[in-house]
């Protein structure tokens, strides 16, 4: 059997099992820990798919930051789930229908790593050779010149901050807005306001 396929199947089974267990158990502390393990497993799966930047982000956000956030939330609440495990039948039907539509959709997607896939023949070659920007057009001596003069070998960073700089800028603004909202919502009440509230 293909060892890569075997590894893929084992990782997928582990991830699915961890996700289902995280939902099923009633102990919230254990659930948070399982979510952290799930994040780490997803990071390994991304690395397995050669998506190193995504893997890195998943490991730091999914397994690190999200776990710490949920743990800090747990210190404010209890560690036991209060509601019973009653099943909502319409929700199950909706989830099953949506899931089967999504799985049906994947059947028409190109095979993994197919060099003729639309994603690989449209703009990706230009991203990889880094010859879209103005710098490469300025070269008058006829020599092929890359946009960043080989200063930026990591194409992911090049796409994120140069070719799609607007996108990343507004992502940063979204994160900033989240931080500002938190500061405004969770700031301690000023003594003056507290006195007014007491009256």
């Amino acid at each position, binding site marked *: 059997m293909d060892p890569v396929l075997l590894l893929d199947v084992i990782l997928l089974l582990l991830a699915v099992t961890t996700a289902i267990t995280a939902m099923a158990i009633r102990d919230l502390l254990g659930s948070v820990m399982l979510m952290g393990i799930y994040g780490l497993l997803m990071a390994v799966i991304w690395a397995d798919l050669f998506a*190193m*930047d995504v*893997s*890195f*982000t998943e490991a*730091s*956000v999914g397994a*690190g*930051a999200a776990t*710490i*956030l949920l743990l*800090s*939330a747990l*210190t*404010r609440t209890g560690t036991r789930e209060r509601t019973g495990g009653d099943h909502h039948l319409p929700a199950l039907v909706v989830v099953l229908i949506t899931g089967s539509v999504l799985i049906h959709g994947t059947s028409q997607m190109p095979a993994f790593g197919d060099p003729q896939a639309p994603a690989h023949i449209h703009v990706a070659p230009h991203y990889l050779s880094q010859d879209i*920007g*103005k*710098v490469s057009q*300025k070269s008058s001596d006829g020599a092929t*010149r*890359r*946009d*960043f*003069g080989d*200063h*930026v*070998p*990591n194409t*992911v*960073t*090049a796409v*994120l*901050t*140069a070719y799609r*700089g*607007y996108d*990343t*800028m507004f992502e*940063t*603004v979204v*994160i*900033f807005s*989240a*931080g*500002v909202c*938190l*500061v405004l919502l*969770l700031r*301690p009440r000023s003594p003056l306001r507290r006195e007014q509230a007491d009256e």
Partner: protein
Amino acid sequence: MSESVVLRTVGGMLFPYILVYGLYVQMHGEIGPGGGFQAGILIAAAFILHSLLFSPQGTDRLLPSRLVDIAMCSGVLLYIGTGVLCLLMGGYFLDYSVLIPSDPAYAEALGMTLVEIGVGLTVASVILTMVRKIRGEAT
């Protein structure tokens, strides 16, 4: 604050290494995997570890929450400011190649480094603020 001597000793030893690794990921993002987003979370993780192991007040002395608020805003300002600087230098918004007219390819890399530092500052301070606020530490 953790009572365990082992945790506090090992955590205290790890703290500077996590910080240095975060800075490495920040500055190395153009060459290897990584970038501002991941670096920001790593740097925030170092300070979160510090506040979990030692007293939150100690971390607040090390990194006052006012400074975190300033870093949060200056990260976004650095990103947008780089774009506006490109406008002032006569290029398009976020067209870094005009920053150094004599070497546009190097200027592109420089602009990308600047905006990545902006992303890193914002992400680190927002994550740190989030954890501090939810745990009810910083006032």
